[in-house]
């Protein structure tokens, strides 16, 4: 299974408005960044050169991992997508 091909395996109705918003300044000062390896959908990537956290909500499985592992509370918003948007499991 290649996580980069998540959209081939799992269905999403992507909202243009993200349901999770990060204050990436907080991530710059974080000594752990457990979100980058813990997120099962690899939504978080840290660039060492740019010293920058990037978050993409498109393939978010709404599992809650980042909400639990972030100990800096870097979220300016963490909610579930609007009704009808986000991940759509068929037979799991």
């Amino acid at each position, binding site marked *: 299974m290649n996580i980069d091909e998540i959209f081939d395996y799992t269905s999403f109705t992507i909202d243009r408005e993200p349901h999770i918003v990060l204050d990436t300044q907080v991530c710059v000062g974080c000594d752990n960044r457990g979100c980058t390896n813990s997120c099962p959908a*690899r939504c978080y990537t840290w660039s060492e050169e740019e010293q920058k956290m990037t978050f993409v909500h498109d393939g978010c499985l709404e599992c809650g991992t980042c909400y639990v592992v972030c100990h800096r509370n870097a979220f300016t918003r963490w909610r579930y997508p609007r009704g009808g948007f986000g991940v759509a499991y068929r037979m799991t």
Partner: protein
Amino acid sequence: MSKAYDAIVVGAGPAGSSAALTMARAGLKVALVERGAFPGEKNMFGGVLHRLPSLEEVFPDFWERAPLERHIVKKGVTFMTGDSSFSTTIEAGNFDRPPYNGYTIFRPRFDRWLAEEAVKAGATLITRATVDELVIRNGRMAGVTILDRKGELSAPVVVAADGVLSFTAKKAGLRQPTFDPGQMAVGVKALIDMPREMIDDRFGLVRDQGFANEFVGCTGGVRGGGFLYTNYDSLSIGLVFHLGSLRTSGKTPYDLLNAFMEQPQVDKMIRGGRLQEYSAHVIPEGGYNMIPELVGDGIIVAGDAAALCNATGLNLEGINLASHSGVLAGRAVVAAHQAGDFSRRGLQAYRQLLDDSYVIKDLKLYRKAPHMLHNDRIYNEYPELVCGMMEYIYRIDGAPKENLSKLFLKTAKEKVGLKNLAADAFSAWRAL
């Protein structure tokens, strides 16, 4: 959108739909609010569905009507290393006779069906609706608002069945504002398509028989375990990680899942299958000690939202506890309506009902299990110890054998240390 109900249930999972069903059957006007396009769309689990005594009371023919997959006749545990494994299985005649001890199911089908049963009983199902805020007027619960919709749904009481992160319970001040990663786990799962006959032959099953196996030692040293369950014509395979351990490991769930699926013995089980769906969700694994406040003024918390999950290592229970707590929450709301008292005191019957049920009794009994499982040796050294011992026992190569108990002590001394072994045995004994 502005409608008055007797009760609002947030979340149409097993807890919410069980609560809505109970209240609707008692004649209450119930709104069952679900953020998915249909109930079950957002839900995943391992998973095996165990007996649901409270729902069996409501419908005796429950098992005939629910959309179930195979019933579990064979349960196994596998200790695993990179290229070896030692398994034990139990296959019991009693597991092959109704009432069955457990089934595999698909959440998008099962949850949808249960919510439809609540609708048949008279509940109003509102889908594509993410609950935003609780409405509190004059210090009393008045209802909820929905994200991106005008107006509100009003009711004097809300059942928070919105899952493990329960923002509803948080907004009511019933759960801690943040979670301890040490009390949480994340499960990832691959659904593998496979012809029914191939599954039957490969796992030794006939008719609707199913197999459920748990694995230890397959998580790359991260605290956690693996599972493999048979559906009619697919396999559910996945891993569960303790988040406190995963986040500092630098390892990713999908790489570890790939490594698990490529382990030679696992590879043989899933070979020929095709990946159909990938899913993930957080699980509250803190047990009894992480249960939040269950009742507030005009609000009751049920299911994962109330952290009602029992993960002892051998049995993994969640949906049964969720559904049971939902039924009890429903009963407490019905009683509150009769008394006209929706205050914390008026709803306190829920706490009592839950305390008297197997839900809290079992969680209390196994309250030391979460702590016992926070032991890295279980996930590294012990699987190696078990596989190494068994390999030695079965190897016949002309070398004279050593006395087994001496060998065990020697190997245990090398791998874990005798002091640790004694401490771990004691801790497991106390926890289970």
